[in-house]
């Protein structure tokens, strides 16, 4: 199959806003119906057929990334119904159940701090300006499970370059939307809101670091961090912040939400590292969703070739 060069994708190939809004509503309904059927005793044997019917609608002709891995993909159902998104509840099934109240249009991202061109960028602009591709990445949760997800997105470095970070920009801070009216979970104080994450500037500029707008060829479902989220595949999943409203270039490393909640358990770097255990559990092995028994966890989640030299000379046990 011919792999299109980026300039071959016209903006008209990308579904217009009204159409993918429609499809998203349909998808959420279809997933809902699938969930209801799932609670009954009979699982439709055409579950895979159902998935095949709904995926690859919004972004049908994506070029494939050189970073794609060949691991077996996690199902669309598992990816969209097993989520940690505490803004919508702390059970894994809560985000799929409650995230429908999130308004993903209008949506703009504020880019400010140590940049020459601080400003807002609308999500529609993002979809037109940046070349989208399919990126199949591993995602490893700090809890000890993992998935393989076919994201739709573009490198974070492309967006950052547009705003021209200055030499003072040493770190990038990200902020999630925080609205108790749309997000029932932020009415409690289990975590400090808004959700904040951060990367060192070279981690942010690494070609692997992705801003994702979709998965499985469709617009991101709300529970997966619509309309724009980060994916940093060599770090534990909580660093892949969802539903981004602000990106700030800063001089000092930001204190992330999980660092604040449990500093002895969750560090700034949180690189996937089988040699550094979490206080409550070992990180040597992981449960790949879809498999019953555990498998070995890879250093940097298997992305050592791309990112190991970001950390040469660093003590990764101290800088966990």
């Amino acid at each position: 199959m011919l792999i299109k060069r980026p300039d071959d994708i016209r903006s008209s190939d990308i579904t217009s806003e009204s159409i993918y809004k429609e499809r998203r509503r349909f998808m959420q309904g279809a997933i809902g119906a699938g969930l209801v059927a799932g609670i009954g005793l009979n699982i439709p044997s055409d579950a895979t057929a159902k998935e095949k019917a709904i995926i690859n609608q919004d972004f049908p002709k994506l070029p494939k990334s050189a970073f794609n891995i060949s691991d077996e993909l996690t199902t669309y159902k598992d990816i969209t119904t097993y989520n940690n998104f505490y803004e919508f509840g702390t059970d894994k099934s809560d985000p799929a159940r409650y995230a429908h109240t999130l308004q993903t249009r209008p949506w703009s991202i504020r880019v400010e701090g140590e940049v020459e061109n601080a400003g807002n960028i609308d999500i529609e602009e993002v979809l037109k300006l940046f070349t989208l591709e399919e990126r199949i990445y591993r995602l490893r949760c700090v809890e000890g499970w993992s998935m393989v997800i076919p994201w739709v997105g573009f490198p974070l470095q492309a967006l950052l370059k547009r705003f021209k970070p200055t030499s003072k920009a040493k770190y990038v801070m990200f902020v999630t939307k925080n609205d108790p009216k749309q997000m029932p979970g932020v009415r409690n104080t289990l975590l400090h809101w808004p959700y904040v994450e951060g990367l060192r500037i070279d981690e942010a500029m690494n070609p692997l670091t992705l801003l994702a707008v979709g998965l499985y060829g469709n617009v991101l479902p709300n529970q997966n961090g619509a309309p724009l989220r980060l994916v940093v595949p060599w770090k534990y999943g909580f660093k892949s912040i969802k539903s981004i409203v602000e990106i700030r270039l800063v001089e000092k490393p930001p204190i992330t939400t999980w660092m604040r909640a449990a500093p002895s358990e969750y560090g700034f770097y949180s690189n996937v590292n089988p040699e550094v255990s979490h206080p409550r559990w070992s990180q040597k092995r992981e449960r790949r969703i879809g498999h019953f028994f555990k498998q070995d966890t890879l250093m940097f989640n298997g992305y050592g070739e791309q990112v190991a030299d970001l950390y040469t000379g660093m003590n990764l046990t101290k800088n966990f």
Partner: protein
Amino acid sequence: MNAIRFIDQVLKPILFLLSLLPLALLIGQFLTDTLGTNPVETLTSTTGEWTLHFLIITLCITPLRKISGWHGLIKLRRMFGLFSFFYAFLHVLIYTVFEHSLDLFAIIEDIIERPFILLGFVSFLMLIPLALTSTNKMVKRLGGHTWQQLHRLIYPLTIGGALHFLWLAQSKVDVRSPLVYLIIISVLLILRYPPIIQKLTKR
């Protein structure tokens, strides 16, 4: 039918079957692939929670007896205690088989390095002598007084089990569920405080 025969021939069998329901549900879900996206996690947490449920039910028997005056309830206590052990055993089995694939070194490492696992393991160890001495023969062999002293282990082991759950939940910051268990267990222990028991006992 008198009260004792009612308990032995009607109530006990019904409650026995009901106590097997959680396991039956898990098996049913396993067979229909409705254990969820992370089936081992579902199995582990469900068996753990039912261990706590049955320990709490067991701890309810004595206060209920004293308050209601229905001494026949004592006949149910052993059954519920053994179900606690049963679900605890399943919980430990799932952990050793599916978390660690029966790798003894990995299990020992977990127990040594993770305090919350050590706590769970010790609590389970305390349940074993209670299960082994649950028969009428063992009560006679130990003598009522010694038997009673040994079975007081249910207090620390239940608290240990709830704290094991709390300690794990702390890492996900949502400690509401384990805290509810700890409150219920505390109330049940307070109800055993002699001055309170005396006030509650039906004459």
